């Protein structure tokens, strides 16, 4: 059943990368503002769909 250790290893590596991505996101200020992004997506930047 070594395969299960391999799967756990691969899963852990994936988790580790997401952890790194998370740390990057926090440290680079991605989450400093946890409100305006939700509003900003509602604003259209193209001429066509501006109400």
């Amino acid at each position, binding site marked *: 059943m070594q395969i299960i250790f391999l799967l756990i290893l691969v899963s852990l590596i994936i988790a580790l*990368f*997401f952890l790194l*991505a998370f740390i990057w996101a926090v440290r680079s200020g991605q989450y400093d503002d946890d409100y305006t992004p939700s509003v900003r997506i509602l604003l259209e*930047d193209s001429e066509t769909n501006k109400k």
Partner: protein
Amino acid sequence: MAQVEKFSYDNAIVRNFAYATIVFGLVGFLVGLLAALQLVFPEANLGLAETTFGRIRPLHTNAAIFAFVGNGIYMGVYYSLQRLCKAPMYSKLLSNIHFWGWQAIILAAAITLPLGITSAKEYAELEWPIDIAIALVWIVFGINMFGTILKRREQHLYVAVWFYIATWITITVLHVGNNLEVPVSLWKSYPVFAGVQDALVQWWYGHNAVAFFLTTPYLGLMYYFLPKAANRPVYSYKLSIIHFWALIFIYIWAGPHHLLYTSLPDWAQSLGTVFSIMLIAPSWGGMLNGLLTLRGAWDRVRQDPILKFMVVAVTAYGMATFEGPMLSIKSVNAISHFTDWTIGHVHIGTLGWNGFLTFGVLYWLLPRIFNTKLYSVKLANAHFWIGTLGILFYAIPLYFAGWTQSLMWKQFTPDGFLEYGNFLETVTQILPMYGLRAIGGALYIAGYLLCMYNLIQTVRSGKLQAYEPAEAPARPKAYVPHKGEHWHRWIERRPVQLLVGSTIAILIGGLVEIFPMVLIDENVPKIESVKPYTPLELAGRDLYIKEGCLGCHSQMVRPFRSETERYGEYSKSGEFIYDRPFLWGSKRTGPDLHRVGGKYSHSWHYNHMLDPTSMSPGSIMPPYPWMIDNDLKYDDIADKIRVLRLLGTPYPEGFEEKAAADLEQQAAEIAEGLRKDGIDDPNLEQKEIVALIAYLQRLGTDIKPKAQATN
């Protein structure tokens, strides 16, 4: 303020994916209906091998998942990613290669699956050349997506983009991991893993395909399109961030819940259960976040069919993600596994969550890129109600069917015998439910036809704005490097390259680890009496795979008294070490076959395959006359033996040269046995049926059941 830059969004590629979504939705649903009808009227297989349940069931699942939902994902991603990044797609050429490549793969699937070309792994049935094509097109999609993210003008990555990134990375690893196979010929391969190990890899993949193909990308779409359609921000952006990270970290561990009470080690089963139960927290966090986005706007839901679709989609997500953890509890799974409960569960997810969210997005998005209004809100409302009824008529009967059948399987008389010793009784009992399910599916399709008409009229009334001009300030450089900085800073500034590079690193690491392990030893307790398949049995086994028998028959006797009484000794992991691929199955529409070997005579099997109702009156199994007519092709038997030996099956050196002769001899013996029972066909020994009988008679006979303890 940085200089404002002008650019334009590519709507043509969004339109292409939208069209493909619409077309393949219909195909996937219709094939599903055809399969559902065959469970009530076996004649609905049209008497053709290509349209019989075992072969079209994978066609249905692949069409629904990869053609309908797949194109739906790309449609939503290509629309929202450009706008969230305030940048056009990285490369128009890559967009087009992605689009046409994916459609070509779907075409290849639609041809090969009915022909019986399958690797037998659920939701990964396609054979190795198509697997490679999928990997290539997926990488094209990845380059295009990450390129767009790199060239974005908006510093912040909205939560939806994170969901897309997670989807891409995880599916890459899963697809490669589960499709490691060694080709025998252009359209046949054997997986590098065998038995229990193959099962574990398959369900690690299978579960995460649901998680990262049907769920995370659609959550990304929900976080973009639901706020857009409601024109209000998501209830809590903070919660969406927590939702994403919690879900990502927990999801990948839940796979073993597909293998509860099987030959998988107990601790691995418990691991899967624990993580599956934990999953309810992030899943419901996401569902509530979606629904609460509409707080104070429920009056609009009453009028707007788009919001209605989205509300039901999110609710279905909530129901499915409540049910999932519940089904992962071992005592619940003991009842639900192998029954229609599972089928009902997944269809709440696909018809409700994926289907309805796709419809909502289509209704919202097509009028926008065609600069027009939705042709008819009334029709969309009608679609909504008919579709919702369809889901209810589909799922509720299947829940009842699952419970009824499982309880019948487990029912003992006061004297300790099985109350329903004949499996068929438990099938005929639920046939009315199968009928209702087909009606539910038909309703869902009826609603969908209204949708198609409505969308076609919408498109006709407008004109595609292929390039939608937009403007946004350039992204400020977040950080200016300085001399003597720590080397790690350099990496940190390149998150996307980091992710892509890391994925490649995992894959290389994985391959390096897997191959020696596979080639050196089978790491499963060996049972001395378990021997490799003979060439004829092997050929029969590959026919079993080709006809998709595993769509209705499991090969896994669980350690319950109700199962050992019915089928025989429970299955041991050591019995499967030569099984490439494993064929445990996940549904018992017919009885388990792991101990079928020696249970019936050769001629019983012959007559049963010719006409199942002649041996079991009332059976809903389709007849397989072509297996009696078709000559067995075994010109590749030497290659098969060679590949299997390479993978570790202990066939002696040089056996491949004798394999054909060995096969012919065993076929002659079985044909002789059949002739003794009065079956008269001069070329009997050359027919496919003989190989199938050889395989079925071998199943589960390698071990002798232990003597019962007496006390």
